C-alpha cells in the first residue's frame, strides 16, 4: 500500500471552477490515493458534478490544477472513465446497450479502423460483469433506472481506466440493484482501481466508502467517514435540514 507516499491517483490542488461569476467550487484540494473507494457528499448544487467534470478534464479550472497519476489532466486523456448522472443523458438517443458499452473501447480504436472483434468481446464482457448481456440489443431508454446505471458502469469498465468516477450511481435504484452495483465497485477496487462516487445517502456512506469528501462549494472535510460524518459539520453544510440528520446521527451512534 502507498500510505500517503508515492504518486496519488488523483490530486486536486486549490481548484476553483466557476460558471460565469459564481464559483461552483472554491479552493478545493484533495489527494486521493490509489485503490480507494471515495464518496463525495454534499447538498444539491454543491458542486459535486462539477468536481467530477473537472477531474475528467471537461471543466477547465479558473485557478488550481488537477493531476492524474502525477500528470496534468489535459495531458492524461482517457485515463479516467466516468458514469454520468442520470439526468445528464439523452435516454431517447438512438443507441443500444451494446453500442454504449462499445463506446468504452473507442479510445483504443484508431480513427481509420472499426472496432475489432476483441473490442466487441471486451464490451460484452463488461456487460456481463454488470449482468446486462441479456439486454444488449435494447435501446437504452427501454431499461429501468438501475439497468441504465449498470450499462454506463459497463461502459466505464470497458474503458479499462484505472480511475472511475461515478455521478450518483445509486440514485433511484432499489436495494438489490444498489447492492449489485456496489459489488461491481468493490470488485473493481479489488482489481486495483480507484473509484470516486458521488453519493446522496448519508446513512450508507460510512458503510460503503473508505474516505469521504464533504463539499459545498468549498471543501468542508475530507477523510475517513467517522471523521467526516460529524453532526457539527453536517449541520453546517446541510443547513435547515438539521433535524433529519440529528436522527441519523443518533442511528449512526447506535451502531
Amino acid at each position: 500500500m502507498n500510505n500517503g507516499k508515492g504518486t496519488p491517483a488523483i490530486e486536486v490542488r486549490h481548484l476553483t471552477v466557476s460558471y460565469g461569476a459564481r464559483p461552483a467550487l472554491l479552493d478545493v484540494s484533495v489527494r486521493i490515493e490509489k485503490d480507494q473507494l471515495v464518496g463525495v457528499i454534499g447538498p444539491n448544487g454543491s458542486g459535486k458534478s462539477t468536481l467530477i467534470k473537472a477531474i475528467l478534464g471537461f471543466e477547465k479550472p479558473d485557478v488550481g490544477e488537477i493531476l492524474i497519476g502525477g500528470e496534468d489532466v489535459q495531458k492524461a486523456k482517457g485515463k479516467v472513465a466516468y458514469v454520468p448522472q442520470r439526468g445528464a443523458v439523452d435516454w431517447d438517443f438512438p443507441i443500444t446497450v451494446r453500442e454504449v458499452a462499445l463506446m468504452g473501447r473507442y479510445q483504443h480504436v484508431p480513427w481509420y479502423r472499426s472496432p475489432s472483434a476483441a473490442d466487441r468481446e471486451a464490451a460484452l464482457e463488461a456487460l456481463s460483469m454488470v449482468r446486462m448481456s441479456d439486454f444488449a440489443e435494447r435501446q437504452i431508454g427501454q431499461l429501468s433506472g438501475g439497468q441504465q446505471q449498470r450499462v454506463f458502469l459497463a461502459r466505464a469498465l470497458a474503458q479499462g481506466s484505472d480511475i472511475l468516477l461515478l455521478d450518483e450511481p445509486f440514485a433511484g435504484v432499489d436495494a438489490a440493484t444498489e447492492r449489485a452495483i456496489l459489488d461491481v465497485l468493490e470488485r473493481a477496487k479489488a482489481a486495483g482501481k480507484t473509484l470516486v462516487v458521488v453519493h446522496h445517502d448519508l446513512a450508507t456512506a460510512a458503510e460503503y466508502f473508505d474516505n469521504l469528501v464533504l463539499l459545498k462549494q468549498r471543501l468542508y472535510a475530507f477523510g475517513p467517514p467517522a471523521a467526516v460524518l460529524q453532526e457539527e459539520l453536517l449541520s453546517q453544510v446541510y443547513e435547515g435540514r438539521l433535524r433529519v440528520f440529528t436522527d441519523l446521527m443518533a442511528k449512526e451512534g447506535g451502531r
Partner: protein
Amino acid sequence: MNFLLHAFWAPLTETYFQKALIGGCAVALVSGAVGSLVVLRRMAFLGDALSHAMIAGVAGGYLAMKLLFGVEAYAPAMLLGSLIAAIITVALIGVVSKVSRVKEDTVIGIMYTGVFALGVVVVSIFRQYIHIDLMHFIMGDILGVADTDLWASAIVSASVLTILVLFFRHFQLASFDPIMAASTGLPVLVLDYALTGCVSMVVVSAVSMVGVILVVGLLITPAATAYLLSDRLDKMMALASLFGVTSVIGGLYLCVWLDSAGGGAVMLFCTLQFLAVLAVAPRYGLLARWRRLRNMIPQQVVEDVLITVLRQQKETPLKVLQQFVQVPQPGTLWKAVKQMESEGLIEALPQGYRLTGVGEKQAANVLRAHRLWESYLASIGTPEDAVHPTAHRLEHIHGAGIVDYLDQKLGQPEVDPHGQKIPRRGNGARKKPAGNEPEEQ
C-alpha cells in the same frame, strides 16, 4: 396500365426531370444523414439560420467577382460567399451567446434575420450590377437545376458523406456524451465546427433546389421520420437518407402531375411521409401508443385480484374473481390475470389461481394499506358504512411513505376497526432514506 406507364415513364425522358432527380437525390441523401445529427443535437434552428444567412454571401460573392473581374454570376464565388456568410453567422452566434445573457435560440434568431436582411438590402441596392432573383432564392427551383448546381451538390454530397462515414464513431460519441468524448481526448470543439461546416455545405447546395425556407425541412424531416423507426444511429442515418430520396422522387412526380412548384411538392411529400410514419411506427408511433394505452392493465385491477385471492385463502377460480373485481372493460380481467401469471404474482392450478411468494407479499402490502386506511377513516369519524368502500378505493394509494405515515400517525395499531389483524410491512419494500425522492422502478 398504359396510363400508369405513361405517368411514371414520360417524365423520366425529360432532361429537366432527370437533372432534378439526380441533384435532388444527391442532396437528400446527404441531408438525411447529416440531418440525423442535427435532430439529435437539437440544432434545427441553426440549420434554418444558415440557409437564411446565405443570401448575404451569395450577394457578396456575386458583387466581388463582378467588380473585380467583371464576371457575371460566377457560381463558385457565390458558393464560397455563402459558406463564408454561414461561418460568420455561426461565429457571431457563438460569441454573442457566450458573452451576453441572451439565450442561444434568441441569438440565432437575431443574427440570421440580421444577416438575411443585410443580404436583401445589398441585393436591392446593387440591383443594376447583380441580377439575383430573390424569389428564386427563397423558393428554389428544383426543375431548373443548372449543371453547375448539379456538380456542386454531387461534390458536397460525396465529401460530406465521406466525412460522416469516416468519423461516424466520433460524431456519435460527441453527440451522445460530449463529456466522455472530451475526457478520452476527442477534439469535441473541432467536431462541432466540422458538423456545422457540413451542415452549411449541405444547406448551401440544397438552397438552389428547394429554396431558403424549405431547406431546413429537407434537413430535419427525413431525419425525424427515421428517428421514429430506429434504435441505432447508423440505421437512423441510412433510413433518413432513404426517406430524403423517396421525398425527392415522390415530390417530383407530384409536381409534374399536379403542375405545382417543385420545392413545395418535395417538402409536402416529405411531411406527409413523416405524418404517415408517425401514425404507424411500430414502437414510437401514435397507433402503437394508443394500443399500448388500451392494453395497459390498471394497477387497481391487479391489486384487486391479489387481495381477492388472498382473502379467499384458497385457489380462486376466475368466476369468483369476476364477482369481486371491478374492471373497466369486459376483457381486462382475463388480460390482467394472464399478465400477473407471466410476472409471477399468481400461478394457475386446476382449481383456480394461487398467490406465489412474491404475490403474497404484494397482496399483504395492499391489505395492510386497506386496513390502515380503514383505521384512519374510522379515526377521523367517517360513517361506519362508508369506511369499507372508501378504504377499498384508497388502498391503491400506497406509495412509499404514505402507508407508513398512516401507521405512525395511528400509533402502529395491531388490528383494524373490524378487529382484523393488520399485516406488518412486507420486506419487499425498502425504507427510503429521508430527503431522497423515491423513484418508481
